[in-house]
């Protein structure tokens, strides 16, 4: 079973490596959105410092939503998904592996580049750290929740718009807590509470989301 999971992750990474444009689109979108804010708002360091966590988080959320459509769509189109449904590995585990691969491709690059982008907002060093940690814990939650939405809207016409409507309400708490971490740290309260909450959300989503997405996939493929 572990071999099958490793194979799924390896395959998705290999496919992403052979088609880098998909990965770069998401990353570029994130970089562009975040970089436009300092240009549009003007060089007021105090204001930029205040809005930085929110801007970075909103951009990360939109960027990860941009990549959601692709999570199961190509496997569905070419029939690989049917083989996964009929595989010897429990579907929930396969989905978890796919979500992990999806996060490595579309979430991790955002986390890694966020400290560089945060410099544009004149954020102090320790806040940059808190922001990166909150993103590292928060973006996998976004991928996990998104997997349920992507599985539910699979194969529907206009699924993209429906997908955003479905997952956005579930993304909002993650956004509030995630952006709140750096804000709390900036105000001297320390962001531990939010970081712990995010960690809790991640554990919760990691346990339940793959299972829910697996059920949704079985329904969509019928």
């Amino acid at each position, binding site marked *: *079973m572990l*071999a*099958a999971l490793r*194979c*799924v992750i390896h*395959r998705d990474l*290999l*496919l992403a490596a*052979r*088609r880098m444009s998909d990965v770069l689109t998401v990353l570029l979108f994130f970089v562009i959105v975040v970089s436009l804010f300092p240009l549009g708002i003007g060089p007021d360091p105090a204001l930029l410092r205040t809005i930085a966590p929110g801007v970075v988080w909103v951009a990360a959320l939109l960027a990860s939503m941009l990549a959601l459509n692709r999570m199961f769509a*190509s496997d569905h*189109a*070419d*029939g*690989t998904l*049917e*083989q*996964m*449904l*009929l*595989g*010897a*590995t*429990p579907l929930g585990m*396969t989905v978890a592996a796919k979500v992990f691969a999806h996060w490595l491709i579309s979430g991790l690059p955002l986390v890694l580049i966020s400290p560089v982008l945060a410099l544009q907002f004149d954020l102090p060093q320790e806040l940059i750290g808190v922001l990166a940690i909150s993103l590292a814990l928060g973006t996998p939650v976004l991928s996990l929740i998104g997997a349920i939405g992507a599985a539910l809207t699979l194969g529907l016409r206009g699924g993209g718009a429906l997908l955003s409507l479905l997952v956005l309400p579930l993304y909002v708490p993650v956004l509030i807590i995630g952006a709140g971490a750096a804000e709390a740290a900036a105000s001297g309260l320390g962001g531990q509470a939010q970081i712990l909450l995010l960690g809790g959300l991640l554990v919760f989503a990691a346990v339940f989301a793959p299972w829910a997405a697996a059920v949704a996939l079985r329904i969509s*493929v*019928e």
Partner: protein
Amino acid sequence: MIHTNTSGIPSLEAVDLQCTRGERTLFNGLGFRLRGGELLRIGGANGSGKTSLLRIACGLLEPTSGEVRWGGESIRKLQEEFWSRLVYIGHSNALKDDLTAAENLRIACTLAGFSVREEQIGEALRRLGFAGCENLPARVLSQGQRRRMALARLALSDAFPLWILDEPFAALDTSAVECVQDLIAEHVSRGAAVILTTHHEARISAAATLRIDLEGS
């Protein structure tokens, strides 16, 4: 030629299946019992429900009523236990355009729950007439070659007691059709069960061939 160890393989049983897609009832009260060493051929016009029947038989689609049993137990209950004994090759070839033939085949096998060695993959691809194209991405292959690539999995799947094949001969040339027919005949003679749909009058020498013709409506 024919092995007698058919008793070790559970039978696949369909009981009173009904399938309704949208407003149309495709079939009603359909049942069969397939034991090891038997071949079930499903015929019928386009749109008569052949693919739906296969998808019901492998558990991808839930029948409107009735159930499918493997060794007397409902496949809905068995889930992975049933699927780990099954090879299903559907209409779509389940190939990734950006991966090579060998990579695609290895992934298909790993997903099905068994690992294969490099030389086994080469041999399976050669058997389906793939010598020399192992390292080409699937994107550049023709429709028939892609079908062969999907079917190459059969050459590695002799341990699976049930094969369900949807139009395996579509887009294949005569030599490939013969090769796939041989694979199926060999598998049936090993005591496994095979279900397939086809428009071809395929010549497969099997000890027992069942036939279901769907009428459509």
